[in-house]
């Protein structure tokens, strides 16, 4: 059990409080706990939204602002090109060998974001690098990625991994 403060939507509505002596406090909406506070820690359930800067330590050494990944994708570039996993991405566009566009669901606030790009080699004697395509323009809605081998020739890697930080 726990003490609770419930913003009720049933009956007469309003705020319903219950109390015990467990030292735990649950903040509830319509009887569902969305925030649980205890001496051992705080648990947020469901989707959270925080309009300020998010700061934490978590082994960093001090509490400092953390900057989140705003979009990411993991896809294979060989055979049937397909997305294995993604976040804030509606699609990738296969423009040709080693040439892909990552399309964001929610656009970036400007074009000064930082893409981190990695690839998976196709074999022990192959090498593939990924970069923002040299003759492309980073847009708020998408970024174009190129992958090349040592020649450098455009090459499809078996894995392409992109994370967008802003």
């Amino acid at each position: 059990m726990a003490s609770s403060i419930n913003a009720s939507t049933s009956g007469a509505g309003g705020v319903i409080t219950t109390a015990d002596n467990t030292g735990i406090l649950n903040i509830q909406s319509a009887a569902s706990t969305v925030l649980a506070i205890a001496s051992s820690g705080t648990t947020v359930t469901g989707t959270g939204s925080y309009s300020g800067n998010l700061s934490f330590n978590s082994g960093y050494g001090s509490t400092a602002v953390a900057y989140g990944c705003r979009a990411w994708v993991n896809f294979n570039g060989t055979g049937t090109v397909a997305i294995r996993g993604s976040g804030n991405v509606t699609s990738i566009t296969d423009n040709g060998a080693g040439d892909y566009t990552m399309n964001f669901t929610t656009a970036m606030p400007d074009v000064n974001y930082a893409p981190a790009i990695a690839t998976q080699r196709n074999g022990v004697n192959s090498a593939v690098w990924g970069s923002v395509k040299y003759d492309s323009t980073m847009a708020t809605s998408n970024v174009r990625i190129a992958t090349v081998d040592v020649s450098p020739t455009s090459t499809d890697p078996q894995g392409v991994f992109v994370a967008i930080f802003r």
Partner: protein
Amino acid sequence: MNQRIVYQNDEGGISIIVPADCGLTIEEIAAKDVPTGKAYNIVDISEIPTDRTFRGAWTWQ
């Protein structure tokens, strides 16, 4: 999603949009991610070749 969106790109080749599992329909993704004014087709994934050796020579009719 076993469908793809195909359109002719400005570099003379074809571009193929691979949808993510993002909650949008293929039509909604096409409306968002196909460049404005480009004609496109929604095709089954089985119509896209898996041998990409000559990817730059692919055409769409």
